[in-house]
């Protein structure tokens, strides 16, 4: 890979880390990182004057995220193909896990508002796992570009 492309990918990784940081701040500000706060955000709380959300309302919010999560995952993962990690079995697992956690993160709110409150835990877990996978992929790319 040419040096200029490596430079471009390194900057893309920095942008990704900035995006991850903004996602964490936004999630903490709007929803919160506890089981109760996630439930309250989606199901509502009359005492705190938090309105409940509908499945359609959630779908409107997640609509751009469906495209964005897929695109970010695809772009980062396809850079792995240019590294030595391409031929490792773990890379396939990483691809599966990244896309599965992204799907869970996006669609668990619809399950929560339909009575499956347990999925508030899955929402939190998938949110953090997805970000961890994104950071891990970024690290693999950074390491490959810098040292391989």
């Amino acid at each position, binding site marked *: 890979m*040419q*040096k*200029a*492309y490596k*430079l*471009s990918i390194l*900057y*893309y990784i*920095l*942008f*990704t880390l*900035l*995006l991850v940081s*903004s*996602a964490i*701040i*936004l999630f903490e*500000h*709007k929803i919160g990182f506890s089981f109760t706060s996630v439930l309250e955000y989606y199901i509502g709380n009359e005492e705190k004057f938090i309105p409940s959300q509908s499945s359609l309302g959630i779908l409107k919010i997640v609509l751009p995220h469906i495209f*964005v999560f897929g*695109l*970010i995952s695809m*772009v980062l993962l396809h850079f792995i193909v240019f590294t030595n990690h391409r031929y490792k079995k773990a890379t396939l697992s990483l691809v599966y896990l990244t896309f599965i956690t992204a799907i869970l993160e996006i669609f668990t709110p619809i399950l929560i508002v339909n009575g499956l409150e347990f999925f508030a835990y899955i929402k939190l877990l998938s949110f953090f796992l997805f970000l961890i996978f994104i950071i891990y992929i970024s690290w693999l790319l950074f390491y490959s570009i810098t040292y391989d």
Partner: protein
Amino acid sequence: MKFTLINNIQDDKAMSLILKGFLVFILLYLISDMLVMNSNFGISIESVNTTLFGDEDEYIDPLNEAAFLEFWHTQIFFIMMILLTLNTIFIRVAKRSRNTLTNLLMISALTSLIFLPLAFYTSASFVALYIITFFIWHIVAIYMIFYSFWKLNAKSI
């Protein structure tokens, strides 16, 4: 990103045309971005200050934190995708100064995105730095578009 692997893009008329079409769309996006930013958020120190912190004399409320964070989050995504694709085309067609311009483009865009929350959360003095870096990355990006367009019309790359 198949175009990164083609030896001579000029010979591949279809790929050259596709890239030119894409460059036109990036240019349209950047121009529209500046117009929309000018209208909604502001691209001068005074207007950005008014948007972020409000103006009591004109009864304008400050931007609430949730709206600011959503705006910032969206900006990061769009800028990173636009700049990655534009920069990849530029690297493919340019021979000189590509590392310098890549650094200038990416560092100015990154710092503008960092100065924005710094202005909102810490000090209004970062607004000026945000505006400066905002214009730097827009100007460099527009230069890259025209340069790439010109190189795609050249006899060989």
